[in-house]
């Protein structure tokens, strides 16, 4: 990605941005986030198919944000996250410049977030086939079987909150689990505590989750917790016409339509 390196250097040299967030080679065959602050740091920038971590999780972190204006290497999921974050007033044109990477691996620099939004809107969020299959399989189970499935799947969870930390939408300084008057979600990791934590997280992401799988990728225990948010995404599509991050439009869950479905209400 010579183009990316070149542009990152220019931006840093000109002082247009203070930090360029991108990917570099990491341990084993992994890649990791790079924070280029000096122009020479940009030489380490890479981009390839291994770069799946959602870098948008960094742009709300005080330590990164505090450096000054940021530029970010943004794949489609990252851009989606950025747009959702912008709609929640967490980033704006004055502190973020987006160096987009198209699904065809082409770099495009966006003038502003409105352009990013327009780009993002060219694509709809589609659930990958392998996940659709899993979801269908679950749908076919009886509720009791699903219950056993989830209790079993969530049982290894030790609440390290890697899912939360990796999620670009989980930027709250004090998460619901840390709210203790009352203690809505049990702090310890046990079947009930794990269940409630993941339920709560899924519903807080309803209409916000951009389906980047960052949570699943981050989970050290390989829990398929992204199935929960994918389910929410499917519901959003089924009931509310689908979800697409948008800077100005009302948030999917803080708005309503007078004719929302109510066949389940007696």
């Amino acid at each position, binding site marked *: 990605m010579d183009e990316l390196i070149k542009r990152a250097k220019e931006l840093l040299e000109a002082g247009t941005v203070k930090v360029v967030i991108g990917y570099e080679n990491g341990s084993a065959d992994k890649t990791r986030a*790079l924070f280029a602050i000096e122009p020479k740091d940009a030489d380490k920038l890479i981009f390839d198919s291994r770069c799946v971590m959602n870098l948008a999780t960094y742009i709300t972190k005080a330590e990164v944000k505090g450096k000054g204006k940021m530029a970010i290497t943004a794949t489609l999921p990252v851009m989606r996250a950025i747009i959702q974050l912008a709609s929640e007033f967490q980033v704006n044109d004055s502190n973020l410049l987006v160096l987009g990477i198209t699904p065809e691996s082409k770099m495009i620099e966006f003038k502003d977030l409105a352009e990013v939004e327009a780009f993002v809107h060219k694509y709809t969020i589609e659930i990958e086939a392998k996940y659709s299959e899993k979801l269908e399989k679950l749908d076919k189970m009886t509720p009791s079987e699903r219950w056993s499935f989830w209790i079993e799947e969530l049982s290894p969870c*030790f609440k390290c909150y890697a899912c939360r*930390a990796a999620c670009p939408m989980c930027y709250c300084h004090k998460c619901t689990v840390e709210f203790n008057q009352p203690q809505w979600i049990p702090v310890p990791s046990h079947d009930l505590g794990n269940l409630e934590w993941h339920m709560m997280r899924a519903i807080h992401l309803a209409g916000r989750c951009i389906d980047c799988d960052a949570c699943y990728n*981050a989970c*050290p*225990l390989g829990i398929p917790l992204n199935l929960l948010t994918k389910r929410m995404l499917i519901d959003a599509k089924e009931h509310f016409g689908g979800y697409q991050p948008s800077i100005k439009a009302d948030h999917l869950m803080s708005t309503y339509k007078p004719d929302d479905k109510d066949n389940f209400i007696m």
Partner: protein
Amino acid sequence: MKSDRRLVRKGSLEKLFEVLKGDNRQVYAPFSRNGRTSYRKIEKFSDIATDYIQTTQSSKEVSFPRTEKILDYSKNADGMSVKGIEPDQIPQIMLWGIRPCDAMGIGELSSIFNWDYKDEIYNNRLSKVTVLGFSCSKTDEYCFCTSVGGNPGNTEGSDILFTQLGGNGDYLAEILTEKGEKVIALSPELFEAAGDIEKEKFLADVPVKFSHKEIYGKLEKFFDSEEWVGQSLRCIGCGACAYVCPTCACFDIQDDSHGKLGSRVRCWDSCGFSLFTLHTSGHNPRNVQSARWRQRIMHKFSYMPERLSVYGCTGCGRCSRACPADMNILEHLTSIKEAAL
């Protein structure tokens, strides 16, 4: 005591497993699901995972469960009735298949729980654990036990250490403690006499990257280094590293109440969480991720050696493997070693 060396046929392992399972004993061994390996109670020998360099989670849960009741209470007409946990509620555990680094970690973890105040809950659990270690014949780029005082065939912390002699071979069993002898006594016929075996030949080669003493010396003056900020910038502040670590002992104490009845539990916590040290006043002594990352490294490589005379790292490399942001402790320690003061 000097170790007793025996030979266990490959085919005898399953028999040993069956023997160990009986009589109010539970066998905890590596189990794989979703591509991750962790320890859990195993009923069938075939459920034991074998294809792992290192388990995803450490085995510390046998003595330091992620969530553990420390007392029950009930309110009644006369006041309050409070009950602790009785030791006989804790079963005998056969901890099967842990790596030498983890076995070494048991001592490190114990030193925290016995620093002046003896944590009887922990000690009781540990006293019921028999450690059946398995030497390492494989390694990956995350391993660095040899840099922190361990090695792939280290006997420290194991009651019996098994070393497989070649890819599909029999096992050398080094019986290291009384607990280990008790295991032999359960089924002596499985433990044949071992001839002269050069164990080292069958062990993985883990290169030495630094010496922990070297790191200790460096850290003494490293508290205010800018290096912490650079290293921790990509840290996302989760607790994965702490929770997979065999020696991390940070915990929280929480109450669980249901009207009159309830219990108090101890559960894992992590120094990496941003609210870990937050005062109710809103003041936070470690208010940036770099301070929290520094705490993690300093605790293991500076504070523990100074205060407890042990290091808090076994070189198992789990934290690096588990990290969603690819924080690599080996790499970071190496750069601390090389950093200018």
